[in-house]
């Protein structure tokens, strides 16, 4: 029995659509993508939702930074904000609840040529996906993770979230939440994230600045973006919105972003806290350490075809 019932077959690449040759398109001939070219489905969000702003700024960044459709991959889990990939005209994946980060890690680790962006909410990041958040940060896998934090479960209609403030009433805590909320900045810093930023959907220029800085960071870059749920938690972030009488206070320029303790202390400032880059250091990414392991191993099999490498294993088993 050494013939395969199902040998390798080349696959046709698309169903009934005829495969016509596509001329190459050098980057120099390409114009930055307009909002029209990168937007897909109309968002399903409620009017006034903070997430619209994040989406608009993602489009703006794609245009400004001349990212091409095929070079970005947008990944999300489950939740209101996680509908994101449907609204972006580019390769995208809408995965299961809480597991967007490992899915995106699989892409990032096998395809160094792509920018991987993950969008999600506070439930996805800190509740069902809490374990993945810690380990993706610790392993420093190269991707950008934007958590649109609204401090409530919106898609399932008003249950307590892991970032809901103490005392907040919801359908699952009619008398007010009694559980200490997660502090996303502290969580990220202590888990070993190498880029930790905070912004608010109501300050568009700052969102764009954070997204660009995160994208440029070589490693796991995490942004918490306050994004109001106008339906279930209206006014949650008024204290950070100047036109509502609040204060959008930037981190002072004197803050040393490589000082972990300073970043941690900054995270403890009273609500609504400050905005900007809390922490940013360079530490080898998992992508780089795996590439090094590969290079070291490949150096020992230079010039050999894959089957010849495998043959060495079989020779040892004779």
């Amino acid at each position, binding site marked *: 029995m*050494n013939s395969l019932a199902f040998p390798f077959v080349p696959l046709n690449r698309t169903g009934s659509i005829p495969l016509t040759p*596509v001329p190459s398109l050098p980057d120099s001939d390409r114009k930055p993508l307009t909002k029209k070219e990168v937007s897909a489905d109309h968002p399903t969000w409620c009017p006034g939702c903070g997430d619209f702003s994040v989406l608009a700024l993602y489009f703006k960044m794609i245009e400004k930074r001349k990212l091409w459709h095929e070079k970005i991959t947008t990944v999300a889990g489950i939740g209101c904000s996680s509908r994101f990939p449907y609204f972006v005209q580019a390769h995208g994946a809408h995965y299961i609840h809480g597991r967007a980060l490992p899915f995106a890690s699989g892409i990032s680790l096998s395809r160094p040529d792509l920018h991987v962006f993950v969008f999600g909410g506070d439930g996805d990041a800190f509740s069902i996906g809490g374990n993945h958040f810690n380990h993706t940060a610790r392993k420093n896998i190269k991707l950008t993770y934007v958590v649109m934090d609204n401090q409530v479960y919106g898609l399932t209609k008003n249950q307590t979230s892991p970032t809901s403030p103490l005392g907040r009433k919801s359908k699952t805590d009619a008398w007010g939440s009694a559980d200490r909320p997660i502090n996303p900045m502290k969580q990220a810093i202590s888990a070993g994230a190498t880029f930790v930023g905070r912004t608010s959907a109501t300050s568009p220029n700052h969102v764009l600045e954070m997204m660009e800085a995160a994208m440029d960071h070589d490693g796991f870059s995490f942004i918490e973006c306050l994004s109001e749920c106008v339906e279930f938690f209206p006014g949650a972030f008024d204290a950070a919105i100047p036109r509502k009488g609040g204060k959008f206070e930037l981190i002072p320029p004197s803050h040393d972003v490589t000082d972990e303790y300073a970043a941690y202390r900054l995270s403890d400032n009273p609500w609504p806290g400050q905005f900007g880059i809390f922490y940013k250091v360079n530490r080898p990414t998992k992508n780089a350490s795996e590439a090094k392991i590969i290079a070291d191993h490949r150096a020992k099999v230079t010039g050999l075809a*894959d089957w010849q490498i495998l043959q060495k294993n079989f020779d040892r088993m*004779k």
Partner: protein
Amino acid sequence: MSTTIVPGTPGAIPQISQIPEAVIRIAGNSQDGIQAIGGFLARLAGRSEQEVMTFMTIPSTISGGPSIFQVRIGSGEVLSAGDEADMLLAFYQHSYDNHLGSLRKGGVVLYDSDHVKELLPENLSKYRHVGVAISGLTVEAIGGSGRDKGKNVFALGLLARMFDLSVPKLHKLLEERFTGKDPSIVQNALNCFNAGYNYTLATAHELFRLKPGENVGHNQVVMSGNEAIALGLLAAGVRFGAGYPITPWSDIMEMLRRELPKYGGTFVQGEDEIASVSMAIGASYAGRVAVTGSSGPGIALKTEALGWASMAEMPLVIIDVQRGGPSTGMPTSVEQSDLNIACFGGHGDSPRVVLAPSTVEDCFYTAIEAVNLARKYSTPVILLTDQGIATRIEAFPEPDLKKVCQDISPDLSPIADHKPYDLSAADGITRHIAPGTRVASGKYPVVTGLEHDELGHPTGSPKLHIAMTSKRRSKLQKLGRELPVPKVYGPSEGQILLVGWGSAQGPIQEAVKTARAAGEAVSGLHIKYINPLPEGLEQIFEGFRHVFVVELNDEGLYGYGQLAAVLRARYCNPKIRGINKVDGLTWKIREILDRARALAQ
């Protein structure tokens, strides 16, 4: 104290008997290196063009505990590890007490007389006893350090003498095994071996010589099922995997972790089972079929993600090395009780492919098939193996790797337009394009777990849910029609058809041979493609009065094992009944035949 039978004059040349095969059971503690002796014997058999099959039990404790390793070496076809041993090598009193019963009447028990002190008189007449002070002589052989580490190699020397095994080949195997270590270790090993070999077997009145293997005309390789799966995945072109440690799956991930970087690939140890399956799915989406795997409990954790892969129609290979369940169950025992979760585990209607290899060689080729089926049908494929196959060692013809190895790199060249979930596709099968592929129309697909339209955008349309559910089902029905119809082992008509899957194939075939030799009309049928099932089984069943499905799982609430229940549901044939057991051990030929005969009454 000598209670051994002294058969002849000390020093006399014992009689030499030619034997076609031998079953040797080595019983000791897990830290004594008895697996190593078994491994040497298996490898030697492979190099001598003999067939070999091993069976081992290991305690699920970290260190220590009774353990056995059984090797069956034969010049003809070896289909199982053997019901009864011809020789028992017992290192301790407990090894002697617990395993003497596995010896055939008249068989030889070779025991360490430093540890085995109590020999029952009734046993002395039933089995031939050969006592050797293995521990003491080992210490002597390596210079009296007071430690008996190496007594396994001493015992190997004894076995080499008793079975007239090739000393140069064993020397070479020992040298290979310890290459790269301190030269004194190699020398110690050789000293132990030679001491054992040269020990005057005054007490053995008979030596054995295995008939030479037929010249098969090709090289043989010797490995375990888990190794064969890992190597098969490499040959298939898999370059990314992710997993979480769990016995007995861990060997596969450890090997892939070591080997993949040589091919430019990566294996990631995920933070948990869910992360591992998710990383593998992400990598598959990124263009190249990836692998994850686990054993029972871990498979349960992966099933939500499996549902996504079924919905998004993402190629993926999941290895399930089954063990005794449910829950933590019997982690180092054999069981085939994950068929249900493999075929049906999950939420919603989530069709997937399930394959079960039957031998170590089959593990290698089935791993490649799993990858090819995942690609061709754009579907998750579960490869269902078990603890028995995973750890047993067999010899098989070396594959022609130049022919077998395949390139499954993604094609990222630009494409005019694309709809992954194209309902009008001629073959009805989804084709994904990997990120990085430019689509000239500017319309990009989204892969999703929501019910979707042809581009992957969400829909609540009942019409589309019906159409897409049917699309996901029909492609596997199409596969069912393409599957090879299994061949009956033995005549296609008779009294009893023994149906099995996975590691039951060997014991069933041997049971058929045994029954046929006794004049009974028994045949066998092995089902490798579990989900979907191949066509033509109904016609095969027609040729027999009884169809007994032999499975290592429980008879269930309604009296049928897991495959039996599927076959009954599929064919509504009352002839189909089950022969089941859950003792954590592989099938003995006698067990299968006794149960089949009783059931056929």
